[in-house]
C-alpha cells in the first residue's frame, strides 16, 4: 500500500528466514528499544578465520525492526568481523529500501546496534552506537 510496508518487509516480518537461536554461539547480544517495546537478540558463530558462518536473531517488535533484523542477520553470514565493524547504517537502510522517518529509524537500526555491540562491546563503539 505504500513505501514503508513494501512486500519485502511484510514478507520478512511474516516469514523470517533467520529467526532462531544458536546454542552454543561465539557472540550474542540482546537489547531493546523501551520506547516502543522492540527487542532483538542476535547470535553468531564464527569460523577459525574470523568469518561469520552462522547467524540468527530472536525477539519481538514492529514489522520494521523484525524485518531489518532478519535481513541483516542474513547479510552478515560470510562477512568477517572486521567487515561487520565497517558495515554502516546507510548500507542497512539501502538494503531495506524504504524511506524512514526519525522515529522508525530507531526500529530499523536496533538490529545493527545489537550486532555491533555483540561483536565489539558497547564501550569500544560508544560513539557510533550513540548515533544509531
Amino acid at each position, binding site marked *: 500500500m505504500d513505501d514503508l510496508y513494501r512486500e519485502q518487509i511484510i514478507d520478512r516480518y*511474516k516469514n523470517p528466514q533467520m529467526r532462531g537461536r544458536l546454542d552454543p554461539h561465539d557472540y550474542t547480544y540482546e537489547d531493546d528499544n*523501551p520506547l*516502543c*517495546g*522492540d527487542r532483538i537478540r542476535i547470535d553468531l558463530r564464527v569460523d577459525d578465520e574470523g568469518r561469520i558462518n552462522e547467524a540468527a536473531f530472536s525477539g519481538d*517488535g*514492529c*514489522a520494521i525492526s523484525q524485518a531489518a533484523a532478519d535481513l541483516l542477520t542474513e547479510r552478515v553470514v560470510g562477512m568477517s568481523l572486521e567487515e561487520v565493524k565497517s558495515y554502516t547504517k546507510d548500507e542497512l537502510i539501502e538494503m531495506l529500501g524504504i524511506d524512514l522517518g526519525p522515529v*522508525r529509524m530507531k*526500529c530499523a537500526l536496533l538490529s545493527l546496534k545489537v550486532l555491533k555491540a555483540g561483536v565489539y562491546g558497547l564501550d569500544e563503539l560508544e560513539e557510533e552506537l550513540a548515533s544509531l
Partner: protein
Amino acid sequence: MATPQTNNTLDVGAIRKDFPILGREIKEGVPLVYLDSAASSQKPSQVIHAMSRFYETEYANVHRGIHTLAEEATAAFESAREKVARFVGAESPRQLIFTRNATEAINLVAHSWGRANLQDGDRVLLTQMEHHSNIVPWQMLAAELGFTIDYAPMTEDHRIDLERYGQMLEQGPKLVGFTQMSNVLGTINPVARMTEMAHGAGAVVLVDGAQSVPHMAVNVAELDVDFLVFSAHKMCGPTGIGALYGRRELLEEMPPFMGGGEMIKRVQFDSFTVTELPSKFEAGTPPIAQAVGFGAAVDYISNLGMPAIRQHEQEMIERALDQLEEVPGVRIYGPAAEHKGAVAAFTLSDAHPHDIAEILDRRGVAVRAGHHCAMPLHEKLGLPATTRASFYLYNTSDEIDSLIEGLYDVKKVFA
C-alpha cells in the same frame, strides 16, 4: 465561535471551527483525525489569541515592576490563577501553585512534603495504573530516604481493587497517590471514596488529575483531596504550565521546592526567609503568557460546561468500544464504558502498535502507540505496547469510523 451551551449537549460542529488545526490535511485530500488528546489536546483560537494578544499589548515581567505594563501583566497572571483555582473548587487562589506541568507538581510534593515527612521504614501507597510521573518521583525519593512503595492492585476488569486497597491502607502509608483517570485503561477511580479511606488510615492524599480535570468536573472540596495536580496542555491550554492544588495547612508547613527570586521575603549573604503562598513555590520568572492561556482554556471549557463535555465523551467512548469490538482480532484493555473516560487502548492480532499507528497515519488518524509512560502497567497486562485512541470535546463519530476503516487497512497489510 462556540457559544455557551444552554443544554447538556455540545455543538461539536461549532467547536471544531474554534480549533484551526482541525481544518488541516495530513496530506492532499486526507484530513486530520486527531485521536491523541490524552497525550496533548489541540488549542482553540480563543486560547491562542489570548496569548498573542497578551504578548502584543500587556506583556512584562510580573510582581516586581511599578510601571503600567508590569501591573497589567501581574493582574492578568493573577486573574488566570483565580480562574484555574475556581475551576477545581479551591478555597483560595493562594492554594493554586503554577508549575511546569503535572509531573513537576508531583515532584514538588515529593521533594518538599516528602522530604519533610517521609523516612526509612515509612510507606507510600500508589496504584498499579499510575503514569510514570506518579511513580518515578517517589522511587527517586525512596532511594534516598529508604521508605517503601506499595502498589494497590486492580480487579480483573481493570478497576482499583478497593478491598486490597483497604488492606494495604492498614499498613499505615503516610501518603497515598493515585490517578483519577488512567491514561491507558481510561479507568475512572472513585476518588472521594479512596480519599475517605486513606484519610481514615491517616494518610495524606495526592491525586493525579492530568487525565480527569480536562474531561470532567473535579472539585477538590467535594473530593476532600490534599493535593491535586494537572497540566494545561491536556485541557486546551498551552504547554509549559500546570498546577498544584494543595490543602492550605500542608502548603504552609512545607519547605520551599526551588530557590531563587520571587519565593523569598528577604535574602542576606548567609540566609533567606521564605515568602507567602503561592509565591513560596514559584521561584524565578513564571510562564506568564502560558498562565494567561491556561486561564483562557479554563474559560473555554467552562463555557461549554464540564458535564456536557463528559457526556459527549461518554457517547464517544461507548460508540468507539462498540465498533472496536466488532473488528476481528481487536482486544480492548480497561473497564466497561460506564467506568471509564474517553480512552481506548487496544491491540490488534499480531500487528505491532507502531505498525498500526503508522498505517492509521496514512488515513490522517493520529493515535498513540507504545507504553504511554506506564511501563509497569503494561508489564502487568503482559504487553510491551498498546495502541491508544483518545477522544475530546472536538471529536466526532465520523472520526471513529475513520479509525475503524484504518484498522481494516492494517489487517490487509498484515493479513
